């Protein structure tokens, strides 16, 4: 029997969700351990001593950290449909764009939602430039990966369920259908995907979470932009 698979994660974290998506696409059953991020568990601190963050994949006795490292591990360790493309150059492109999401895209879009006033203008501009780059990557395809979701779709999951929630909670609209029709269509494909349906986050729960943490995130954004 295969060693048990668990995720130490959090329902509001798109990074945690990436891991669920990957396991879902591979058809691997798993248990999700919800972490209380305000009071980190002994288990999390033991399994991710370097970063002390979610998600962590537990595969039997093994612990793997960092969401994209975990997704590549899942692709290699389990049978099932491939997550990364087969061709080395296509793999390089997929890794380039997932790296783009984590290093150039994520922070500005987060700041764009939670900041205000003059400081917000610059991050909104940067975010729209970044969104345009991702829009272009879709290039008429249903998913970044082609007909079925792949590595970049998993990495970009924030553009699915989270965008609608953040736009509702903050009142800030960034991913509109006029400027980004392909990304909006992608979000629809994503939310109606049967393959991913079992791990779709609960929208109401996300709205409640971000509403509850609104003031905290606004303070954090303000501090970050002042530096």
């Amino acid at each position, binding site marked *: 029997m295969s060693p048990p698979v668990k995720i130490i994660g959090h329902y509001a974290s798109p990074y945690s969700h990436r891991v669920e998506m990957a396991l879902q696409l591979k058809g691997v059953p798993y248990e999700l351990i919800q972490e209380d991020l305000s009071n980190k568990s002994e288990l999390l601190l033991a399994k991710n001593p*370097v970063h002390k963050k979610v998600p962590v994949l537990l*595969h039997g006795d*093994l612990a*793997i*950290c*960092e969401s994209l*490292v*975990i997704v*590549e*591990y899942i692709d*290699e*360790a389990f049978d099932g449909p491939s997550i990364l493309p087969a061709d*080395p*150059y296509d*793999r*390089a492109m997929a*890794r*380039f764009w997932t*790296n*783009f999401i984590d290093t*150039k895209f994520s922070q500005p879009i987060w700041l764009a939602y939670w900041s205000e006033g003059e400081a917000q203008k610059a991050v909104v501009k940067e975010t729209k430039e970044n969104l345009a*780059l991702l829009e272009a990557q879709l290039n008429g395809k249903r998913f970044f990966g082609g007909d079925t979701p792949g590595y970049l779709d998993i990495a970009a999951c924030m553009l699915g369920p989270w965008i609608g929630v953040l736009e509702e909670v903050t009142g800030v609209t960034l991913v509109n259908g006029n400027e980004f029709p392909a990304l909006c269509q992608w979000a629809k494909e994503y939310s109606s995907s049967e393959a991913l349906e079992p791990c779709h986050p609960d929208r109401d729960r996300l709205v409640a979470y971000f509403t509850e943490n609104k003031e905290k995130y606004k303070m954090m954004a303000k501090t970050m932009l002042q530096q």
Partner: protein
Amino acid sequence: MAGAKKGLVLLDFWVSPFGQRCRIALAEKGIPYEYSEQELLGAKSDLLLRSNPVHKKIPVLLHDGRPVCESLVILNYLEEAFPDASPKLLPADDAYARAQARFWAAYSDKVYEVGTRLWKLKGEPQAQARAEIVQVLRNLDGELGERSFFGGEAFGFVDVALVPFVPWLPSYERYGEFSVEGIAPRLAAWARRCAERDSVAKSFHPPEKVDEFINLLKKTYGIE
């Protein structure tokens, strides 16, 4: 791609540790390539801007004209696109060992990221950077343990990813008032061990040159 130059061209900058990662991997694997020094402090070349429009940065590996950007993406690409080139830098059949290698290779970026804050900032933010870099080096020392290389017996993926930051450490030691030998002795020994490798020695510039370059950057950014 029509009219594209066949073979490998590496768009790079002499002192870039990210470029050095690629040079070292190519040398270790004995893969021939053309080195193309790029102007970064002045006007960037058309070739660089066309090849990496998103980041406009080196290194960029052009393979028959097709660009691969981001140093760790390039390292993975070399593993996969040249499967017959040896040595393999990633363990072949062990998904967990590969995951660990990718984790620590990505983590090694922190040496440069935090080190840069160390020479750029003053006061409290600099003190914070100092505390962070000491922790990073301790973590790396702990991960290395008693092994010769991060790859185990053999020089591997994490070693290639981390070793280019070694000539920067003397500068970081000075700015941060710490010693690598003192806080991470196994890592210090590893650095000396790696410097003996041909691929590493040939790509390295002496720490004095690196320090000079940091001073040049400080001038460029208007930092005292």
